[in-house]
């Protein structure tokens, strides 16, 4: 009898062990998100309804898209600080191009995506061919893009966004089974996340981004086209910034300071989602939840009545903490 109980208990231990190894594999961002989101929901009953959750997810979608783009660049060992002002540029520029004419919505979006490609190309080419650190290149691009936007609009963009332009940011798909209303912004985010998932985790593009971020020299010696991959990562990041800008503009309307600090929010969200600063590690689903976590955290700070500076300070802590983590873990290895 004793043997059977022992066998039983050892089997139980085995099962527990496998469960534990599974649990250990779960990235920390998921439990953290659930914890914060539950707290927010507890403090604010609005979040207890499906509608409230959708509002939250729609609000978080642009940040999630930005964070995915940022993650592509971070994983390759770079930084894209020009995202925020590119968002401003797209919003201000779209208002100029649209000029209150709904007919021009389509062409405006196409032109702005083109601008994204150009900005990404300049970033990427300067980084990979002229070998300038990406921090500096994209910091310069931040000023350049913002300056051009301000110059173009004279600092005060005119008009309003037409409804067919705003629909991406604030529209809903009505009568969806189960959900009822489903935000278009969330749908766009999900589509982009799926596309990015395939690019990053299932294609040679993503594998080679990680290879470069992990060890450029080894990648080059193994035939990886380092420059091309780097340029493409910057282009993808800029393109996603344009998409995020269209969603943000649709949701919040025209303003010349929407983009301010978004690049840092994107870095923070990516880092919370387990992306390694200086490259080598990243995951699309985790980064999406990183963005959700950050958004929930901002809501929480709001609910607690803490003013905006706290939001900045928290982001600062997250980024410094992440860099310190990388530095410590690499030093341990030496």
């Amino acid at each position, binding site marked *: 009898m004793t043997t059977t109980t022992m066998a039983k208990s050892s089997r139980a231990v085995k099962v527990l062990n496998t469960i534990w190894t599974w649990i250990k594999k779960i990235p920390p961002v998921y439990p953290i998100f659930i914890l914060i989101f539950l707290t927010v929901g507890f403090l604010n009953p609005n979040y207890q309804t499906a509608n409230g959750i959708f509002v939250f997810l729609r609000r978080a979608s642009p940040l999630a898209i930005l964070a995915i783009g940022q993650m592509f660049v971070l994983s390759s060992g770079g930084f894209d600080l020009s995202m925020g002002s590119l968002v401003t540029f797209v919003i201000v520029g779209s208002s100029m191009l649209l000029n209150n004419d709904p007919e021009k919505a389509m062409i405006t979006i196409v032109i702005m995506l083109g601008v994204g490609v150009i900005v990404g190309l300049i970033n990427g080419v300067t980084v990979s061919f002229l070998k300038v650190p990406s921090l500096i290149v994209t910091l310069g691009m931040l000023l350049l893009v913002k300056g051009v936007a301000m110059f173009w609009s004279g600092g005060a963009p005119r008009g309003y966004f037409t409804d067919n332009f705003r629909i991406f940011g604030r529209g809903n798909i009505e009568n969806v089974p189960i959900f009822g209303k489903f935000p278009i912004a969330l749908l766009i985010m999900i589509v982009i996340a799926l596309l990015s998932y395939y690019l990053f985790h*299932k294609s040679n593009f993503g*594998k080679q981004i*990680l290879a470069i971020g992990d060890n450029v*020299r080894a990648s080059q*010696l*193994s*035939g990886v086209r380092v420059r091309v991959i780097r340029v493409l990562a910057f282009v993808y990041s800029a393109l996603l910034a344009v998409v995020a800008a269209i969603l943000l503009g649709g949701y919040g309307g025209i303003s010349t300071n929407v983009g301010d600090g978004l690049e840092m929010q994107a870095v923070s969200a990516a880092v919370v989602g387990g992306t*390694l600063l200086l490259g080598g590690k990243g995951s699309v689903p985790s980064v999406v939840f990183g963005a959700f976590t950050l958004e929930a955290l901002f809501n929480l700070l709001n609910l607690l009545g803490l003013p905006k500076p706290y939001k900045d300070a928290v982001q600062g802590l997250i980024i410094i903490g992440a860099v310190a983590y990388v530095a410590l873990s690499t030093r341990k290895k030496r």
Partner: protein
Amino acid sequence: MTEEQNKTTVLRKTQPEPLLEVRNITKRFPGVLALDDVSLKFMQGEVHAVVGENGAGKSTLMKIMAGAYIADSGEILLQGKKVSFSHPQEAHEQGVSIIYQEFNLLPERTVAQNIYLGREPSKFGVIDIRALNKKALTVLKELGADEMISPTALCNTLSVAEQQIVEIAKAISFDSKVLIMDEPTAALTLVEVRILNALVSRLKTRGMALIFISHRLVEVFDIADKITVLKDGQLVGTELAKDVNAEKIVHMMVGRILDHYFPPLGKKEDFGEVVLRVNNCSNHFLKNINLELRKGEVLGIAGLQGSGRTELAQALFGVMPFKTGTMEINGKTRTVKAPSTAIKYSMGFMTEDRKAEGLLPKQPIRDNMLLTVRSMQSILGNIFNDGIRKSRKMVPTLAKQVDVRTDNYDREVQFLSGGNQQKVALSKWLASNADIFIFDEPTRGIDVEAKASIHDLIRGLTKKGIAVLMISSELPEIIGMSDRILVMWDGSIAGELPAKSTESDVMLLATGHETNNHSNKNDEAGKE
């Protein structure tokens, strides 16, 4: 020549007191005994060369004397007094200076500023530039280099030899009694070497003790009064330069027991057609390289540090391409300007520094194994044709081929042992179907058992008709593995030796004895 005989010839001059003396120095690094009970005397007005193979302990000894390392046991005596340096600065202040192979000059500062860096003469709290330049000029005059180098010249405008003179001037300005130079002639042209020699004799007459490490025996005989040979951290002996010849020194440098057995060498019928032919190729480092590599053979590339072994591999693989000459791969003339081109022509390169150049430490075994295959495929193609799943199926086969035992291919390679890391690095070239393999130091830093299995793997490759070019600084490995041996010296191929040549044959060529080259070859031919 046996070791006992060598040891009895150690000179014991007792008359004058040595300027610098080391007694029973022992230094251990993790896994190696770098210096084992070494005692040496350095006299005033004497040029003392310390020679030995790679890893003989020369540099460690120099660094201990200059205060960069601290010995585990033993003592250093400066002019008869016991000293202990805990920092290079202390050694410097007491009159022991060292000039490394890599100079420590600030490129954007003038010669004078570099010589008196950190101790500039000042007036009213600001640097007195006029006094600074004057002082520097005096030092340069002492060296007889005042006409060659101006104190106000920027260091980045100087040639290598001139920069070296500035380093020497810096040492003189400290009033150094002992000057240690690490491979001072490595980057110099013949004319520059003469200038340096003249300078050294000048310093000799000043009563300094000069110590230098060199791989170049020809130059050692030109300049040194005494030659000390180290081997595997032990003192073999010290000889007066005029009493010995190069052959004797080389014999003192080599010879050891093999620590494991090598797989049998290839047989004549195993060797196929020439797959890689290099005709008169040169770049800024390499001169007139000619070589042929055949299917199924291991071509060993020997040579001392700085002889151009790694540079040869990098040139062949397009990392640092050849500027002139032609290369034929599998019978077709090809230009290889980048690693990706070399890979396209089915070459594979196992780098010397596996952590820095061979692996993606944070990526799983799987992605490391497939890195090369993926870089040969299109960037986006796999989304649609499911290639990534196809390539993943290769992983277990590859692991079996290189004998990496793990059931978890998601493990990051940084957590693997050195031997397994090397095997993973190798597997990515098996995956890409390379048929010309370049191995640069294939067994550096891995344990004996893993070494043997890497050697077996290399032989296994040649049995499949793969051509292997193997670079190694370990002579037993070169001799144990190679079907032919090319010896490099000074950026060119000094000569070719047949399989099973002796370590002395290799060392003679590797230390620049071109004159003996022919007789050596004939000897070997006679033996065959």
